[in-house]
């Protein structure tokens, strides 16, 4: 079965510092997408960054970047220059590009940003 694991229920970071959130997944598929979604207190789900498995280059979006290790099935999110607005719940997600197209989510990591 395909699974997504986020082993850090909660993380804290000082404002302007860097933090890395971990995500591992299990799949036998060779092609898939991986995502990080942010959920602030407003409850809205916001896409942070997306990675296509066939691309070796790690995705980046401004202060957000990923470390994608396909062989290790690891997909961590690095947030640089952390801001108070980054405080939120972060979810890692996976979907295969063929078959059922079911999105599987991790249990989430709550990020606190300390002023």
């Amino acid at each position, binding site marked *: 079965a395909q699974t997504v694991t986020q082993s850090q*229920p909660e993380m804290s970071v000082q404002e302007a510092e860097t933090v890395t959130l971990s995500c591992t997944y299990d799949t036998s598929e060779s092609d898939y997408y991986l995502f990080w979604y942010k959920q602030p207190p407003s*409850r*809205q789900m916001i896409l942070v960054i*997306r990675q296509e498995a066939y691309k070796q280059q790690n995705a980046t979006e401004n202060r957000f970047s990923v470390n994608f290790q396909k062989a290790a099935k690891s997909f961590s999110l690095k947030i640089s220059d952390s801001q108070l607005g980054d405080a939120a719940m972060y979810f890692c997600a996976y*979907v295969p590009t063929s078959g059922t*197209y079911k*999105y599987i989510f991790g249990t989430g990591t709550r990020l606190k940003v300390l002023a």
Partner: protein
Amino acid sequence: DAGITQSPRHKVTETGTPVTLRCHQTENHRYMYWYRQDPGHGLRLIHYSYGVKDTDKGEVSDGYSVSRSKTEDFLLTLESATSSQTSVYFCAISQGQLNTGELFFGEGSRLTVL
């Protein structure tokens, strides 16, 4: 923002009553999903649809049914609500590979079963 509307946004009901949540999209996306979000469990897939009248179960489908008679509407029904179904329910849509695989979410519906 993706055109996704969930209704109702908040509902309080009693155990044993039927409840229907509605998801409406204006994007003509093929795939539609219902998730529930609970502390410590993240988002868990209840049911999803890959076309009109084409649906399949997710990991927590017991006690829930769905219907999709039109592309734009995906209904989630709790035939007889239980307290364990108290949760926040999210509808989501996707075009699959046609749209970079991104999943777009509605604003969520908070259901409380007393």
